């Protein structure tokens, strides 16, 4: 029993949906990017080791592809390949678009990763009362000197490159290019941009665009369904446990599972989405891997009708208001005012001994859960007094309404008369 649990745990660990597995961990399966990987390694090699003449040449490259296709994984793998042998002659800096989307943040993060002396950094950065723009030149020259002193090649990975397209961030990029191409004291720098945005180069100024335009890697998966199935098998399999692997094979060959994998494959061929599906399924395993867990995971992730589920959780008094909205939508697709809905449901609403005050509160509740949204207004415009003046639209589609009427438990009999 313990070995089964440990097997499941090992397999689950492979499936944890993390964007990159870290420097120490190995890639668990082949994603078919061997050519791209070799190319990327050769690009980095020019900076770290040098070209055929032994001269270190600064360069830059853009890696793009859909979310979850393995961009960060590929870059990490290639950088790690060189870092293993040349850790003394190269530095790696990683800037994340998630938190470095201002020039100040980017520069400070760059300094923070390159310079270990925090006190010096404090003096340059936060505590200084001079505006940052005026200090930028000083900081960059300090950075340049520091890089020259260290005599190391620098690999800068910019993840989420689309966040660096504003003017100030481009200024940083250009300054880095300037440092790398300076005739007097050049520092070999490799800038690797990672992005999901295919047309990102159009957002850059010419002087930045030209640095990337000739080196790009497109990682859009171009695989067949059989290979996709093989990924699923590999992800679910265990290195030594043959019994487990037999079960896995049986599950992967199940008709329903194949159908699910096929529909996911048609929608998104990236490994990230597949890992997410299988990880969610793994959370539902009891003692054994089952096709049902994969089916349930698929429903939970992709096939859940959220509005229907939310409506099913509403009490009948609020469902009556939805009935009024449904009738209104049936007549016309236009936006409506709460007063119009109240006119429609006046009779059934009164039979619940509810008044207009309660109706207004119900409207606010439905607005809170965003089943209805004001037309042309923001969230700030939720207000008690202007309800009757506002126009609303319903987020539940006609088909979803049908689903609600069909599945709501113990729907009062008068609903059928209205429907």
């Amino acid at each position, binding site marked *: 029993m313990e070995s089964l649990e440990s097997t499941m745990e090992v397999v689950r660990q492979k499936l944890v949906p993390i964007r990159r597995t870290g420097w120490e961990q190995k890639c668990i399966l082949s994603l078919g990017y061997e050519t791209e990987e070799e190319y990327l390694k050769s690009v980095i090699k020019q900076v770290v080791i040098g070209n055929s003449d032994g001269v270190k040449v600064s360069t830059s490259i853009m890696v793009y592809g859909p979310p979850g296709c393995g961009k960060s994984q590929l870059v990490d793998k290639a950088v790690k390949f060189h870092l293993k042998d040349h850790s003394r002659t190269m530095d790696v800096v990683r800037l994340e678009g*998630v938190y470095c989307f201002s020039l100040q943040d980017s520069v400070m993060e760059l300094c923070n990763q390159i310079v270990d002396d925090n006190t010096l950094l404090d003096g340059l950065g*936060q505590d200084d009362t001079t505006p940052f723009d005026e200090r930028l030149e000083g900081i960059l020259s300090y950075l340049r000197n520091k890089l020259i002193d260290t005599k190391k090649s620098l690999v800068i990975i910019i993840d989420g490159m689309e966040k660096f397209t504003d003017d100030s961030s481009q200024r940083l990029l250009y300054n880095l290019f300037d440092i790398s191409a300076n005739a007097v004291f050049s520092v070999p720098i490799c800038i690797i941009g990672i992005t999901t945005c295919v047309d990102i180069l159009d957002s850059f100024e010419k002087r930045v665009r030209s640095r990337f335009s000739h080196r790009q890697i497109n990682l859009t998966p171009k695989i067949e369904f059989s290979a996709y199935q093989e990924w699923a098998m590999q992800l679910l399999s265990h290195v030594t446990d043959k019994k487990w692997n037999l079960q896995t094979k049986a599950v992967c060959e199940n008709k329903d599972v194949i159908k699910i994998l096929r529909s996911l494959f048609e929608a998104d061929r990236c490994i990230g989405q597949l890992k997410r599906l299988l990880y969610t399924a793994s959370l539902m395993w009891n003692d054994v891997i089952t096709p049902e867990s994969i089916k349930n995971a698929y429903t*939970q992730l992709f096939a859940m009708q959220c509005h229907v*589920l939310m409506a099913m959780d509403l009490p009948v008094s609020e469902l009556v208001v939805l009935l009024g909205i449904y009738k209104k939508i049936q007549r016309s697709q236009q936006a409506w005012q709460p007063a119009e809905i109240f006119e429609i449901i006046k009779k059934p609403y009164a039979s619940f001994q509810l008044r207009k005050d309660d109706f207004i509160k119900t409207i606010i509740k439905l607005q809170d859960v965003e089943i209805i949204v004001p037309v042309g207004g923001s969230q700030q415009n939720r207000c*008690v007094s202007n309800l009757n003046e506002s126009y609303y639209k319903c987020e539940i589609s006609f088909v979803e309404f049908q689903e609600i009427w069909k599945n709501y438990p113990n729907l009062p009999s008068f609903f059928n008369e209205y429907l």
Partner: protein
Amino acid sequence: MGDLSELKTGKIRLQQSNDRLVSTPTKELRIVVEKCSAVTPVKLGPPPQEHSDEEQEQGMDVESDNEQPQEVTEEEIPVEISKIKQVPVIGRISQLQQLNTAIPDRSVTGLPGALFLWGAPATGKSFALDSVLEKKDVHVIKIHSSEILCGRRAFFETFVKQLVRIDHKLDEKFRCDSLRLLYSNVYEYLQEKSLRVVAVIEGAETLRGEHDDILRMLISLQDITQCQICTVLISTLPPGQFMPNILDHSIIPIFFPQYTMEELNSIIVEHISPRCTSSKSSNSSVSHWDSFQQLIDTSQEVNLTRLWKKLEPQMKAQFFQLNSSVTAINSSSSRDQENTHKTLEMPMNAKYLLIASYLATHNPPSSDKRFFVKSKINKAKKSRLTQTLKTDTSKPTMRSFELNRLHAIFGSIQLYCDDKAMNKNRNISFMTLLTSLCQNKLVQHLGEDSWGNHKYKCLLDYDTVLEISRSVNFELNNYLHRLL
């Protein structure tokens, strides 16, 4: 013909439970009654030490309180609150399994980057998560998204302070006002300590829109730090209502549906606590629990239909009170005793909101941080100026306030009072409650300013609010700027 009794909270549910009870005559009902009687003697009240402190602080005011007849108020509702956390989570088997597996024990490494728990209010999302987390060897950060209303810096600093709370190693110069600093603080600490951290963000829907970047950062914390940190977002809205690309490839959604009839029955039988966090009722809805119990005791009815007929009027009244949230009063400014009593019939959360609106009306916005920022709320200056009360209250300054400010103050008061009372019933519809207060002319909507922000004003006077604040054990005088 629809009737109140056909409502989901009324007859439809109860009829079904009747059916069940008929098949097993009164067994479950008896269990309920027995458990009720077992719990009844336990009375909650302030600890003796605290009471004496209050006496010292409030002087004459407290004495007059003591002379008042002991009314059965909501604070005295018999309940074994300390055991709430120990009771089992009912009806969330699949969700518990997923949470238990996703957050493994210490021996096994590997937390998922982010989980997303969603479902209607009061469906046990936080309760289930808490019950899982308390058994795991993980460091828990818990922060409510509405704290962002105090500013991004306060939000980030609360996050980091909760992370490093064991060590207290933050120096006086500690500052965290950007996402980069949040990242570097979290990264450095986790690299040093190699902790396993679960960061719980409640009410995640508040962070949408203007604070999407924070949401994105929190979800990506594990990715970018490569440390064992898992972010759990809790929301009443489905993932689809969030910005695309935020909840796309790394987050695992777990849905909490509404309880079924059988699950609700089990909750009533197992938990019995009137303030049980898993029930959909507000505090006011359980204030008549004793009277229900007495009816059941005295009626000695074997016929459940007859028993239901006896219970129905009270339950009907109860439903209306629950639905309308606030008992109407005719004149808000009137100080007569009757009206005060009516005001005290309000649910706890309505009282908090009234206090919040009063403070927002009478305090300058600049004083909010001093009174309500989380780290300082327990250190609010004790009232030393009770003697000057009469002179100062004669010249109050009225200010209009915005919705966001009210929300922030309300959140702080709710957290403070609920922690004090060990109450966890924080599932409310803020706007619905505010609407009720406006309809009952306790709060006035003043219109909107040129930026589209709606302005409000509290219409209650000092004495009434003081009475309300005493009923929830909130020291109003300590939070009034003009008294400091």
